[in-house]
């Protein structure tokens, strides 16, 4: 925030960075090769819905758009919409494990619909789920405002496997822009699709 903005007390809502999301498919291959974690095929976009009909109309449009291909080969399952206990909305898109490209395209469709309608600042994060043979859960979380990723590995209860997260961080350092400030790796307990 600039000096003048501080002086006048005006924060400009932060616009999301979208492009780095497309690095996910190749990162998924690296991750699988190095750690054995495979994509579950599900991913989600999390945003803070704005009150009023305008926003809910846009949300309905996006859902319709994503569901057009549902059931067809490569089209994945219909999109699930859930609201978490913090009031944030999650759009969960489910595909086959090897359809990372289409999944990312789906997620991007949500992003661009919100941005095109001027609601880009409402985007919080996107989450792509992975699992390994021991059924350990892992998510790569993309922070829209920073354009960075971080790993999130919940174990039982409200605990996270920090060792695994740091391991994944090092594995993916080449493929993804990893969030360097560990304080920003906030937990997303009970995220839908994880």
């Amino acid at each position, binding site marked *: 925030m600039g000096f003048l903005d501080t002086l006048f007390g005006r924060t400009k809502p932060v616009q999301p960075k979208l492009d780095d999301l497309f690095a996910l498919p190749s990162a998924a291959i690296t991750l699988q090769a190095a750690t054995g974690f495979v994509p579950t095929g599900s991913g989600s976009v999390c945003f803070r819905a*704005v009150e009023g009909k305008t926003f809910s109309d846009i949300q309905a449009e996006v859902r319709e758009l994503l569901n057009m291909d549902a059931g067809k080969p490569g089209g994945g399952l219909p999109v699930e919409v859930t609201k978490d206990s913090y009031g944030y909305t999650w759009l969960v898109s489910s595909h086959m494990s090897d359809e990372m490209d289409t999944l990312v395209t789906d997620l991007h469709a949500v992003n661009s619909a919100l941005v095109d309608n001027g609601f880009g600042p409402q985007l919080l994060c996107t989450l792509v789920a992975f699992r390994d043979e021991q059924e350990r859960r892992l998510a790569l979380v993309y922070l829209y405002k920073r354009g960075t990723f971080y790993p999130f590995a919940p174990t039982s209860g409200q605990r996270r496997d920090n060792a695994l997260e740091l391991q994944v961080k090092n594995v993916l350092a080449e493929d993804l822009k990893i969030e360097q400030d560990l304080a920003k790796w906030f937990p997303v307990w009970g995220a839908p699709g994880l």
Partner: protein
Amino acid sequence: MARTRYAPDRGLTVRMTATMFLLGLVFVAFVALLIGIMIAAHASGAAIVLIALIFGGGGAVISLFYSDKIALAAAGAVEVSPQQAPELHGMVDRLCALADMDKPRVAIAPADMPNAFATGRNSKNSVLVVTEGIMRRLEPDELEGVLAHELSHVAHKDVQVMTYASLLAIVAGLLIRFAFYSELFGGGRRSNNQNAFPIILAIMAVSVVVYAISFLLIRLLSRYRELAADRSGALLTGQPSKLASALQKVSTGMARIPTQDLRAAEPLNAFYFVPAMKLTGGDGRSLSALFSTHPSLEKRLEQLAKIQQQLGQAGPPQ
């Protein structure tokens, strides 16, 4: 440049600029007058001014650097870890990620009075405090609105801005006191120095005027910054009506609480979500509005209604 629905409020910016310009003007006039007086003066006048500057400036710097610790101690608040207050931390985490800002520390004050404040000179050294009372009374959505308002204060560096703005008033206030005491105790020596009396009297008169004017301007600036924080907070969550309902609940809750408990919270008033002490007496509404650190509930609700309308506009934005 991406398209946006979040138009800045030019009127508010203009009013804030005008207030700061006036404060600056008073400041320049004050310094000029003091220099004039000091040139005409002998040692005692100059010494008083210097001491006031050192004490006032030093005090302000100390309070700026320790504002988070002072406020925590004054409110009796205790910092909480994510394990102790997962819901509260989760809310702050998400809001900070939405706004792309550093997360302040989070603390809870064991007071029943429903309130919240944020303090600290920058986002790295900030602490966000909520009372147990506000957590009990508000729905999660409403509490989130309040937190977004407080985080906006942090983002706007309001503690710094208000400290700098108050610096002048602090120095003027000290000068009044010093001049008064030097008259009181230095009275015996007056016969040696015929100059001293009128000069100290002049310093006192100038300081009183400056103090009064800057006091009103600072209060005005504080009200504008509250409106700015309401605005940024409502835009951040996209839920202006939730913040509005929180404001309504909290301010009616405030009226219920006996005055005696509230007086203890008074030093932190300028940073509180809703002022803990209502000015009574005087000329009723208009006077208390002039002296108040926070805008009236009606003004705040009116602005939030406008934002709600803005966010709901159909069709793609310009």
